[in-house]
């Protein structure tokens, strides 16, 4: 029986592992955190009345399927310590200080992304409690089923969503659009409006990216519900009454404007993860700095494959597709390798 190593237990790693396990390939799935599902498992459902097809619920099903699949061995709190290439890959895994060695025929990098840290942006993140990242907002809604201000637990009357924090930013060298944040923020804004009626949402953006199959309709509708301002705020300050003041150049009035909000959400971008870099270093893959800005896929050595946000920013649906592609490549590789 052929055996492969999947690094990363997020939506991509789980999908590919399931695809291959079902075809009789033994999968060792290593996940560096204490639970499966990756970032997707931290996201909340963004349905208003209807499902908006964000895909966050899909991961629950995948985790369940993977846990019940005999061909998948799941190692949590585990990472790759060393990979040596012989006839196959000799991998040293470290799980809770325990070392174990396995041999695998192929390696799948499904090591996901790292969320951008906005501490150094002029938005008061880390200093003002009511400035949160989009991921933190998702976690809050998921944990308590509501959105309230961290400083006083009151429901926000209005919220600002600032897009492209850490994306499309040449000063950071981040020459990529993170792609999923427009959909996440607008769906989130409408989801909160549905649960907490009367909440006014303002969306500060550069360009709205497509999301979902019925984007045209959803977007037209959203423009009626959410105030759209094509401008990225210059800074965020705290007012004396514990609210947040944004200043921005308003294209409508051609002047700098100020607006005060109860909460500010930073739509943080996706960046390549540390474990992808480490893995690339172990496998002598030239990442050439940041692969996200590239047009062409990273060149991978024979027997090494990649899927999901380890390659570039991807939505949940795209990650599932990317995992299917990788699984097919791996299956083909294992079949042809066995013939030689």
């Amino acid at each position, binding site marked *: 029986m052929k055996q492969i190593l999947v690094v990363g237990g997020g939506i991509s790693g789980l999908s590919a592992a399931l695809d291959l396990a079902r075809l009789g390939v033994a999968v060792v799935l290593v996940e560096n955190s204490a639970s499966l599902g990756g970032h997707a498992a931290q996201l909340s459902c963004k349905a208003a009345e209807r499902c908006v097809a964000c895909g966050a619920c*899909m991961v629950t099903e995948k985790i369940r399927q993977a846990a019940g699949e005999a061909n998948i061995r799941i190692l949590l709190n585990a990472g790759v310590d060393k990979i040596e290439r012989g006839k196959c890959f000799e991998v040293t895994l470290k799980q809770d200080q325990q070392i174990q060695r396995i041999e695998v025929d192929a390696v799948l990098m499904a090591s996901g992304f790292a969320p951008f840290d906005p501490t150094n942006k002029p938005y008061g993140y880390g200093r003002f409690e009511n400035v949160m990242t989009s991921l933190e907002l998702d976690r809050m809604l998921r944990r308590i*089923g509501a959105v309230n201000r961290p400083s006083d637990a009151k429901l926000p009357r209005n919220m600002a969503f600032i897009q492209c924090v850490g994306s499309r930013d040449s000063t950071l060298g981040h020459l990529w659009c993170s792609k999923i944040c427009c959909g996440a923020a607008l769906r989130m804004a409408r989801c909160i409006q549905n649960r907490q009626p009367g909440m006014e949402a303002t969306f500060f953006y550069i360009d709205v990216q497509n999301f979902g199959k019925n984007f045209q309709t959803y977007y037209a509708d959203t423009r009626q519900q959410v105030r759209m301002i094509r401008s990225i705020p210059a800074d965020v300050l705290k007012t004396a009454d514990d609210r947040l003041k944004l200043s921005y150049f308003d294209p409508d009035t051609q002047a700098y404007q100020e607006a005060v909000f109860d909460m500010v959400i930073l739509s943080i971008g996706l960046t390549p993860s540390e474990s992808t870099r480490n893995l690339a270093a172990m496998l002598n893959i030239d990442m050439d700095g940041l692969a996200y800005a590239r047009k062409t896929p990273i060149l991978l050595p024979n027997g090494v494959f990649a899927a999901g946000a380890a390659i570039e920013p991807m939505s949940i649906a795209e990650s599932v597709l990317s995992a299917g592609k990788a699984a*097919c490549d791996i299956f083909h590789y294992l079949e042809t390798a066995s013939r030689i």
Partner: protein
Amino acid sequence: MQATPEPAASADMDDPSPLFEVRTETRISHCSGSAGNFQVMLSPPHGIPPLTFANIVIAEDGMQSPLFSLYGLSACPTVLSLSEIQKVLSSPPASEHTLTSGQTAVFMVGLAGESYPHVLEAAMASCLKLQAEMGLKTMILTRNLKVGAPGLEALYRKTRDAGVVYVKFSDALPTFQQDAEGKVLIAFLDDITQMPFTVIADVTVVDEAVAPSPYLKDLSRIFCLDSDPAGYIQSDNVHRLSVFTNRKGILAAGASRGVLPPSAWQAEVQETVITLLSLIKGELTSRGNKAEIDAGACVRCLTCFRLCPYHAITLNTRPVVMTDACERCGMCAAECPAKAIRIDDLRIQAISERLQPIPCRDNNASFTPFLVAFCCSRSAGRAKELATLSGLSFPERLSIVEVPCSGSISAEYLLAAFRHQADGVLVLTCHEGNCHSERGNILARRRTAHLKNMLKQIGIDPDRLLLKTLASNMAAEFAGTAAQFEKQIAEAGPLRINKLQRQ
């Protein structure tokens, strides 16, 4: 259009010469059967025995139509579509065309409607060539710059550095006036400076609307496939990811399931292959009891045939369930007017056995209501599991009955719960648009509303029955809904059903 002929589908993977037969100028005229044994009629040739296929892949290409009329323009050698300019630029020598250095070329991308990253990419690549290699001045007019694809932000910066001018519009759009020589006068108010501008375009390039192939409409009818509002043969439902349709064994790839960039086509093919392999191995068949029709009781009203979201019921001389395609949603059994359909573990007797009242822990305490929650196993059932894992607490006397789909929750189930001394009954389904069986949650909602009416008529407070929608990751909401309902029913007091009501 390609189909997997049965011999190839079942052949050994190592077979070096799989059967591959191509039929051109052929359309599908009819299909019967189910996964593993589809009988497909082709035309032409007419009248020959149908061909048998294990699985079917629909991979129709999409349609592109230039949006000239939406901008009030008409096509001419200098007013052309994006595909046309791409063709001109890719077939040397491009100089045969009237494009000359110093001219102004204006591209419209996503002005008439929102565009797509791969369309922007084509426009940017064309501009770069015109600007950097052929000495034209180029402009791109757009609403939202769709840079959400690999490398596009970097390409955007590169084109800007090369001198391509971008004008973005939020609300007001430019006006176009085309003269007899094909030059176009474009006038607009610039969003950023709020100044009026006019540009005379020597060459005007118009983007194209992307639409499904018209043939998909026929295929949707022939294969009984759900379409999305745009007409692609995959509904906008996360359970269909990536290439599934509502029918087992029929897959939709590429431009048959939605708008996909050409760069995704390879992945589509591979995802389709891996899905087919799993299908052939029988790995994607749902396990458990399937629907059975009692031939003696069936009155052939065909409700089940019309209702089955998976089209797992075929018509012989009477309706017959194609067991492999049945996903156990139970919609047919719940709706059958003659009660001729059963799924063994979803029979009312089996459900009733799961409805035994939970005794109060402390008999001296104040009233603690007995609650029954019927949960769709894909959504609320998983939310409950997650809530348990997260250490959330539930009402003391809450009995959970998981069913494969809320579409199976019949009025009988709900009445049985009340008969088994439930003081309140919850129906927990997925959100509309998220149902694996497409319409199960809608049926559940309709039945619940109907039963609430009935309860009212027999003197039972209809608020004792509550339907809520939950996703599988809504653990907090599951616990919250249950707690809130317990509070509400505790306030309402115990349900006392008299003999008359019991009947």
